[in-house]
């Protein structure tokens, strides 16, 4: 019962933090739309071309814009010692990582969903494609949250090389983008590919708590 109360308090705090700097999320979404515009200007406005490459472009731009503010995943909590305090309050670091991943998924990635249909509108995507994009993004964004947790916790004490965190996320998100874009391109393989996506999601949900927890433990020890 106490654990349940603590969990509610944790999510309350996360939502308060989220609403206090909601502008950050909006500027992230704005970046996504601007990059869509830049892409369209670079390719020309041929409707058929945009329709064929639309899903892939939207997915890759989503990936890039979600790596933008990954450093904030743990950094503020780590700097002011909240992580240590929560850990002392009876949560193991692995549990904290799982909670953080889910709060990042709920408060950062789910609001991103509102931008998907509008982006699909710009590329003239058919309704069916947008629907599948929605489904794949819900699973894929959970994977992205796991990867973000891994790379952010690896780079907690990294003061020199800022881009290596984004490199790590992009590196491990290659299978994600292959399968999630492949759903639209390959006919009659919806079930098998969505099962593959679920499988990748489960793998990363299994890996990321202990990897991030080990990194955070190292960072706390070396602070």
């Amino acid at each position, binding site marked *: 019962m106490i654990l349940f109360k603590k969990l509610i308090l944790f999510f309350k705090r996360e939502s308060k933090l989220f609403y206090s700097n909601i502008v950050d999320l909006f500027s992230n979404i704005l970046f996504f739309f601007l990059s869509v515009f830049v892409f369209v200007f670079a390719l020309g406005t041929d409707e058929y071309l945009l329709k064929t490459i639309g899903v892939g472009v939207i997915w890759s731009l989503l990936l890039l814009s979600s790596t933008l503010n990954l450093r904030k995943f743990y950094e503020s909590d780590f700097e002011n010692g909240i992580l240590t305090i929560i850990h002392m309050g009876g949560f193991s670091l692995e549990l904290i990582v799982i909670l953080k991943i889910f709060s990042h998924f709920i408060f950062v990635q789910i609001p991103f969903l509102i931008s998907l249909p509008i982006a699909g509108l710009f590329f003239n995507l058919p309704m069916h494609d947008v629907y599948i994009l929605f489904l794949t993004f819900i699973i894929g964004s959970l994977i992205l949250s796991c990867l973000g947790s891994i790379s952010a916790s*690896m780079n907690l*004490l990294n*003061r020199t*090389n800022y881009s*290596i965190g984004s490199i790590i996320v992009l590196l491990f998100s290659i299978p994600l983008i292959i399968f999630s874009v492949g759903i639209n391109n390959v006919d009659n393989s919806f079930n098998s590919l969505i099962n593959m996506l679920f499988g990748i999601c489960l793998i990363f949900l299994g*890996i990321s708590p202990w990897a991030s927890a080990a*990194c955070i433990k190292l*960072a706390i020890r070396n602070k």
Partner: protein
Amino acid sequence: MFKFLINPSRFNKFTDIILKPLFFITSLTLVVGLILVYFSPLDYQQGLTVKIMYVHVPSAWLSLLTYAIMTIYSIIGFVFKIPFGFIINKAIAPIGAVFTLLCLISGSMWGKPMWGTWWVWDARLTSVAILFIIYLVVIFLNQTFESRDLREKIVAIFIIIGSINLPIIKYSVDWWNTLHQPASVSKLSSPSIDLSMLQPLLVMTIAFSMIGIIIAILRIKAEILLRKKHL
């Protein structure tokens, strides 16, 4: 007996003994291998370009083997708290990167006359390219953090996570329909490669791995000396 694999001073003693004979054996196998490659028969389809295979295949095998060794040593170093594993991780990552690059370059040199392009977006090729990027990230991470203890452990965690790629590379030719030919030597029942081509391939593999071992020994010795100086 195998304590030299996890103990730096034993390692130094052991390698001091074997280093000079190793130089001799390596040069011998390399010369013999090159002669065998020179006299090996031409392929009836590929002609002379089949000889690129004698560089391509050993370096591909060794790139995978180096990563597997790094994974094992990261697990040893991280779980059993043996720091020698981290020394080896740092020392042999560039060797693996060079072997992977050699594999990619020789492969694309073979691909230009045979397939008609330098690069195909094929499962095997792409996964090996990702392996190369993983090696580069390992090398970069080794230069990044200030505290050495933190750095080597984070590199070990990254290597363990990145080892997901190894089975993908190995089975990529079986899982997907690729342009790259499937494994022909390691089929247990009967290798589908002729003996006259298998012999130089194996000799070249031994020579390549000997070269890798010599460079690795020298790099590990240098790393041990560096750490002793800092302590």
